[in-house]
């Protein structure tokens, strides 16, 4: 095993980490902010991929899909928020269960519209080449995913740390009651956070579409590692989501290479270790897990 090979694996791991991050951060911050575990987050991701399929077929242009598909997902998210989530505010368990029901509904909805089959979305022509790195070639599109992920990290960091809204969100995650006593409009902050999270889930679906196959069931396939990211990182924080995503992405990439016996169990094992020693995650927020 030479260094070049490790370098390529590192890029692969980074690419997976960035995808996981885009999904986990929305789930995690929404969870940290209002205790809402949105299992249908994975459904948004799946719809992102299917909308990408639809739009890129209609227009023949991936770049249009990259912009339009996540916005369509946000639209669905808003409908879901206004019709269902608002109605059952305050009861976290019922909210989680409703999103769980949506997981079933979304799964069959996709089958009704697009059928059972496997689809693929071609990567954009602009990026259909390979870059020589570490003495080998690496698909430019995967570097693009890493780039999108890093851009998301930077934008979210500035959004959370440098804007008023970000301060409100952080205050809400840290200590909801105090934030509300201070007259902070937590509802609006929550709505915007929810929309941003949903947008990122949709975006994740779009950028994942050319790499993974687009198929019903891709929702749960991503949901499990994303939940593990949230458990490992600790819910509620940007840093937790980044750390969790890196741990899971790297473990899933290097696990099969370095410890083939453990292969796909490695991430579960890591989750178990975290539960054992840091049940609130590696980087918990002050209010932590409830």
């Amino acid at each position, binding site marked *: 095993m030479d260094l070049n090979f490790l370098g390529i694996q590192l890029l692969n791991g980074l690419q997976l980490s960035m995808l996981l991050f885009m999904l986990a951060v929305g789930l995690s911050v929404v969870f940290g902010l209002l205790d809402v*575990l949105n299992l249908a987050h994975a459904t948004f991701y799946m719809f992102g991929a299917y909308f990408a399929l639809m739009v890129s077929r209609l227009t023949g242009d991936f770049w249009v899909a990259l912009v339009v598909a996540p916005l369509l997902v946000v639209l669905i998210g808003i409908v879901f928020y206004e019709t269902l989530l608002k109605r059952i505010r305050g009861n976290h368990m019922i909210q*989680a*269960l409703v999103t769980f029901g949506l997981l*079933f509904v979304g799964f069959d909805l996709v089958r009704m519209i697009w059928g059972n089959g496997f689809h693929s979305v071609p990567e954009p022509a602009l990026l259909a080449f390979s870059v020589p790195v570490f003495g080998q070639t690496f698909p430019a599109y995967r570097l693009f995913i890493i780039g999108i992920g890093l851009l998301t990290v930077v934008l979210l960091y500035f959004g959370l740390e440098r804007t008023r809204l970000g301060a409100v969100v952080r205050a809400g995650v840290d200590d909801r009651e105090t934030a509300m006593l201070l007259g902070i409009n937590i509802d609006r902050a929550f709505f915007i956070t929810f929309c941003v999270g949903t947008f990122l889930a949709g975006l994740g679906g779009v950028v994942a579409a050319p790499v993974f196959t687009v198929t019903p069931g891709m929702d749960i396939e991503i949901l499990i590692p994303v939940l593990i990211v949230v458990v490992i990182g600790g819910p509620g924080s940007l840093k937790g989501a980044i750390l969790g995503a890196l741990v899971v992405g790297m473990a899933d990439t290097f696990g099969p290479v370095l410890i083939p016996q453990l292969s796909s*169990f490695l991430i579960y094992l890591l989750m178990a270790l975290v539960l054992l020693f840091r*049940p609130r995650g590696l980087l918990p927020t002050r209010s932590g897990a409830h």
Partner: protein
Amino acid sequence: MIPARITKRDPLRAVILILLFGAAFVGAPVANHYWLEILTEIGILLIFVVGIDFLVGYTGLITLGHAGFMGVGAYSLVWIAHIQGIPVSIAMPLAILAGAVVAVIVGMLVTRVSGVFFIMVTLAMSMLFYSWAFKARRPFGGDDGLSVAGTIRLDLSSIGIDLDDQLTFCLFVLVIALLIYLLFEWLVRTPFGQTLGAIRQNENRVRALGCPVGVYKVAAFTVAGAVAALAGALHVQSTEFLHPNVSYWIKSGEGLIIVIVGGMGTLVGPVIGTFLFVLFHKGVESLTTHWQFWMGLTFIVIVIFAPDGIYGRLRTLAGSRKRKRKLHQPLDEEADVRADA
């Protein structure tokens, strides 16, 4: 004056139980192949589901990974009986024991978190089992599954029971289901069950009273895990085919849905739920392939508008009728007017 009972009786429970099980036991001998299959499925699902209600409705541990233990039961039984060639009569208790042992270990991990977090972690743990089973080509056939026909049914011929006969097997499953139901019905009425209920209602208070709450959560998790392993062992005996899907999240999800739709924390509610679920499933299946869509939608509506489930509604209805009758005993005509309307 000291009241005769601490907790109130719930006679409606017994009535419904007798009606449903009565129908199953009376119906089985006259049922054809198709209906016997359905009744057997109901029996096995019922064992799985009352275990979930014990966890969700009584102890307050909302699990979304309980099918993992069905998988443990099914795969242990196949490994011990089909692959190692040990008699099923020995293998079955061992499979249940395996479920209990795995449940202790998993329970100690997952009960470190609570609430909504618990849902995430149990889901992930069950998918760990699923992803293992999915890849375990040898000796379990991975995602192709494994036919275990002829080697997996319990042999009770020594006491004159032939479980290879479909009707006999169906009755056998129904009897076990009834016994498991009664076991839980008993457990929840004992000090142990009462403690679990108190933990669900107010964990901190129970701890302040001097109870090591974590131990009791793990104990409940273990009982439910062992019972799910039993359900898994019966499932693989019924279908004579081993497949990872027995532990898939959809199976766990269906179990949770049945419990909540039926009325969690009532035991008999989930029994109603199981009957309705299987019958509804068969009915919708013949009309559409998009069964999950309708199930998900029904579930959402019930969770929002009737969170106490079917049995909760029935009890409220029965309670309010009784109260009305007491209030208006001399005024029979009012009841008549209501009946006409």
